[in-house]
């Protein structure tokens, strides 16, 4: 049946082309697409493809790479204890982000989402760390946790304890990094939740209240379900952001002590770029890129589909 209708209505191929060309859409596409496509190719596809190629060479960055080593860079990376540690650390950041940072952000958002002057002040205070440049945040915290001069030093002195240097303690240095990450980014997620909470219709909450729902039940059964899209987005940012942590670590611990506090990206920088093993660095970069793409694709498929 459909076929019959189609033949009646369907214009010929040439007619279709003619219509498209004259409708202006094709012209617009032809005029507007190339600049974007060229820029995208030049600044995204080309460097990506470049790293993809360099990853198979042993290359110090001089001249063109000639020493093809196959998968040697990847094998070396997989076997390097510092890399394994850095992957573990990045996973720890993801875990802390999801289990500590986001619940904290949600809790604070629930407390201060209403539009009142006091809440505005709190919002500003909680959002401040996010405004700071990462490198500045790392530096500030390196002073705070310094056992000789910092806030920690004052604390230990006041309590009559030995000076404590968390960033030179192998088992705790990365915890310091994670504290700073949570401190730095919870405000951002809080803002996402606040915006979403303000969009929840007031009459729904009122209706729930009238039905006898407690404050907790309102949060559990009305507000959280209503802001689910915002939570999904914030989890996504949080995971991708955790894979990219770099600038906080460098000033705070510089990956130390004993290379125990590297994330994947600081590992890439230290062992790939700073040591001029560009091929090796590319292999790490490619691996990280693939990991990020996989996360993004699966996450989108699982959680971010439009409701059917």
């Amino acid at each position, binding site marked *: 049946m459909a076929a019959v209708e189609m033949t009646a209505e369907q214009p010929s191929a040439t007619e279709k082309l003619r219509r498209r060309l004259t409708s202006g859409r094709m012209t617009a596409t032809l005029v507007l697409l190339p600049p974007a496509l060229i820029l995208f190719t030049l600044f995204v596809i080309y460097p990506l493809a470049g790293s993809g190629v360099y990853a198979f060479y042993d290359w110090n960055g001089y001249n063109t790479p000639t020493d093809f080593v196959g998968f040697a860079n990847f094998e070396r990376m997989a076997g390097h204890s510092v890399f394994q540690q850095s992957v573990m650390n990045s996973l720890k950041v993801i875990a802390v982000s999801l289990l500590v940072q986001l619940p904290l952000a949600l809790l604070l958002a629930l407390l201060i989402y209403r539009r009142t002057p006091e809440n505005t002040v709190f919002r500003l205070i909680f959002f401040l760390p996010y405004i700071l440049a990462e490198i500045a945040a790392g530096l500030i915290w390196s002073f705070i946790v310094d056992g000789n001069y910092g806030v920690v030093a004052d604390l230990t002195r006041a309590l009559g304890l030995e000076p404590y240097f968390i960033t*030179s303690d192998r088992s705790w240095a990365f915890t310091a990094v994670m504290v700073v990450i949570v401190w730095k980014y919870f405000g951002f997620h809080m803002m996402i939740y606040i915006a979403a909470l303000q969009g929840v219709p007031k009459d729904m909450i009122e209706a729930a209240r009238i039905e006898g729902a407690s404050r907790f039940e309102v949060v559990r059964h009305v507000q959280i379900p209503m802001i689910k899209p915002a939570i999904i987005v914030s989890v996504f940012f949080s995971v991708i952001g955790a894979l990219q942590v770099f600038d906080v670590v460098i000033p705070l*611990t510089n990956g130390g002590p*004993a290379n125990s506090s590297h994330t994947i990206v600081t590992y890439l920088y230290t062992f790939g770029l*700073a040591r*001029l093993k560009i091929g090796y660095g590319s292999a790490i970069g490619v691996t990280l890129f693939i990991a990020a793409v996989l996360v993004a694709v699966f996450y989108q498929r699982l959680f971010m589909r439009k409701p059917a």
Partner: protein
Amino acid sequence: MKTIAGAAALCAFAVAGAHAETSVKVLRPESNSPELQQFWQDVIAEYEAAHPDVDVEIEYFASEAYKTKLPTMLQSDARPDLIYSWAGLTLVDQVKAGLVQDISASLDQEYLDSFAPGALAAFSDGEAVYGLPMTARLVVFFANEQLTDKAGIDLSAIRTWDDFLGAVATLKEAGITPLVSGGKDKWPLHFYYSYLVLREGGAEAIRAAMEGDDEGFESAPFVAAGQKMADLAALEPFQPGVLSASAEQGNTMFGEGKGAFLLMGDWAYTQTIGVDEGELLEGSLKILPFPAIEGGAGDPAGTLGGINGYAVTTGAPPEALDFLKFLVNAEHQREGARRGLFVPVIQGTGDAIQVPFTQEINAMIEASPAHQIFLDQYLGASVGGTVNDISAELVSGDVTPEDAAARIQEAWEFR
């Protein structure tokens, strides 16, 4: 007013630009010594006055950024003409890549002969010369005599490593921090490891390891050096939190009298510790050579430090080399020495040094049978970085001397 001044400056620039036919671009890592920057400005002004058709531009990068950006810069259109170099394998890589030129044909023998042989050797390979050395740097023990006196230590009696360990123990007992260092940056700790290797096996051991003789970097001197460093670390000689202190923090702590010894390059005297001559620690600053190791094959007078200079890049105009020769002539070497900025590398110019500290440094370098370049520079970025890593880990106890040596060897093979 500002606009007018700006416009005037622009005009002046335009005029200068119209006359200057060639520009020479110099790229160097940032120096936190204003005196050194002034020295550069003076030399450039002098050169430009004598050569009105040449415009010398100098650009500074932060030290770490300089190292990572250089490969890209050298292969771009913005390639500088003269680049700062710590010599070593990094320079060799640049030569191999054809990015640095052989300038030997434009240098006369008399001029070449005027350099201290070791200094020139750092920038040459056989007959070929790829740059000119300008300054010599030396790593020594800075000692705070006030603190060592308090603990009853006679500095002049510290001759061997065992003497030194004894002094460390004595200081500990007296409640004084024996050593301060910047372990977060790692390289200050690699001075210990490098010196221990030098004392154990001499510069020859390093050359032999590079050539793959014996067991390479897993040979006896390297393992023994690691063991000695682990022994030192077992005494817990450093300030608390040494592994989270930067090099500057370490230097500052020493300058504030918070530690008895600091193993550091002579530049700390003027640049970081930042003192007027003789004023540091109210005159109680002394310097000691790194102690000898009994039974070690290395000459106790052997030194660790740097030979720093400038390489001429491929395609640089002849004026670049001309300026470099002007920068590194006897007169300017003497001037830099006179201002106490560096130990010069042209023979016979060291007598211009007036600062007693620098005079002593110069005497040690002149008496040295072999001046080994910092291992983290000499072995190239990757192997050098590994040496820095294991040095810090020997202090934190995270690696055994054998594994430390094996890690260097592995990095060397993967270089």
